[in-house]
């Protein structure tokens, strides 16, 4: 990161996508795609091993939380009891695998983006792809195409399950007022649905980009001042690095927070589509609003 900044590059350099392989307008491999693949491979390799516990033959011992799997299980249990159950009620266990997957996928993409992998992997990438400018690194969730696809998956889950489980009542939900108002209400409701998905996509993207850009801008001050005087650069460097460490801590928190918010809203939207109570309409919107704020 600092190397690039020192070379006078843009602070956006490590949040944008650097293509390695492109065929017919399709990016086949890039730094962000590599990070996505890394996240998925880590999840697929680690999680089944971590959660599997050898049976001891003792019922109570088998049911007692233990080992590192307990850490994952604690998060899963929280998402299931505190996020999914209030929104999905009796459908909780049907959707919880999707919700857990979404949370950990987004979380891994967010967290891996915080690792300073780029300078380390640059020589390797350059060796394989001589035209590449950038090593592997950066948040996959800092790409709006990625967050957009994830948000679209949520929309598919909402609409598909709304129709499958809610059926006619889900469709009726698009016209909450009298029938003659339908020409007005139905488009508004559809726009509302699309807006929710759009917000989901932009929120994750913007949060991931913003933190990285902020850090890059802060660190670039060192070089801006350092170009004028070495002592000034050193002074600013001490200040900026200490502030950057604090921001980095904040970034770790934001990585968890945004993964949680993405999952929470996905759950809430699916819940609104499939758990249809006549009187609960306002309540759902109230909860959605609370989540937005």
């Amino acid at each position: 990161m600092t190397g690039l900044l020192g070379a006078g590059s843009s602070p956006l350099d490590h949040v944008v996508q650097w293509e390695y392989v492109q065929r017919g307008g399709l990016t086949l491999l890039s730094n962000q795609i590599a990070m996505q693949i890394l996240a998925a491979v880590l999840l697929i390799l680690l999680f089944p091993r971590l959660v599997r516990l050898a049976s001891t033959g003792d019922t109570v011992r088998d049911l007692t939380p233990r080992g590192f799997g307990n850490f994952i299980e604690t998060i899963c249990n929280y998402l299931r009891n505190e996020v999914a159950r209030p929104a999905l009620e009796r459908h909780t266990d049907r959707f919880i695998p999707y919700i857990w997957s979404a949370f950990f996928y987004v979380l891994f993409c967010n967290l891996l983006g915080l690792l300073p992998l780029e300078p380390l992997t640059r020589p390797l990438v350059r060796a394989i792809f001589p035209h590449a400018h950038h090593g592997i690194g950066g948040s996959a969730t800092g790409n709006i195409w990625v967050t957009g696809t994830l948000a679209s998956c949520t929309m598919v889950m909402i609409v598909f399950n709304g129709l499958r489980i809610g059926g006619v009542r889900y469709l009726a939900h698009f016209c909450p007022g009298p029938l003659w108002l339908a020409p007005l209400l139905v488009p508004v409701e559809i726009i509302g649905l699309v807006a929710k998905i759009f917000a989901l996509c932009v929120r994750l993207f913007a949060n991931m980009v913003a933190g990285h850009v902020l850090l890059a801008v802060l660190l670039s001050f060192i070089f801006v001042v350092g170009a004028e005087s070495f002592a000034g650069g050193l002074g600013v460097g001490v200040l900026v690095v200490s502030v950057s460490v604090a921001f980095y801590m904040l970034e770790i928190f934001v990585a968890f927070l945004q993964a949680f918010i993405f999952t929470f809203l996905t759950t809430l939207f699916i819940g609104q589509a499939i758990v249809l109570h006549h009187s609960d309409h306002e309540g759902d919107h109230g909860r959605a609003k609370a989540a937005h704020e």
Partner: protein
Amino acid sequence: MIDRTKQLVLMVLPAPVLLFADGAMAAAAEDSPGLFTGNLGNIIWTLITFLAVVFVLGKFAWGPILRALQKREEFIGDSLRQAKEDREQAQAQLKEYTEQLDKARADASAIVDEGRRDAEVVKRRISNEARAEADAMLERAKREIATARDSAVKELYQLTAKLSTEVAARVIRAELDSKAHERLIEESIEELARLRESRDN
């Protein structure tokens, strides 16, 4: 509706800011890709990696976790229910045993009381009988003493009369027929009895 508008504005607002930033940055560094760089390739890779995570973890990670959570929930629920039942049963038994203990205690004290009462009765009876027997013995002894004394007295009278008669016959040397002799003895006894009565009184 106002909330929805606010929501929309909040959602759309960051987009132009980011677009502006992107444009500015892209202008600053000509060869850098834009902030929104991407294409169908990213969509495809996202779908592949995300769906792989959903399906593989769904089968090998979430399944075991979900089953473990459900089993644990069930086990905890069952244990709590069982504990509640056991406690209720224990309380009922405790109540039953307490009642039984109270009853046993009451029975025991009743038995002791009864025993004491019986003993009292027996004691009184024995004491009465003993007293009665003692009285009877005393009475009999008194009677026997009286009889013995009477016979002794009588014997003494007879002996005295006989001796007196012998002494008198010897003294006066007079011959007395047996009839007169008998009358004299009777008179002497009566005389002695009178004397005794007057002395007793």
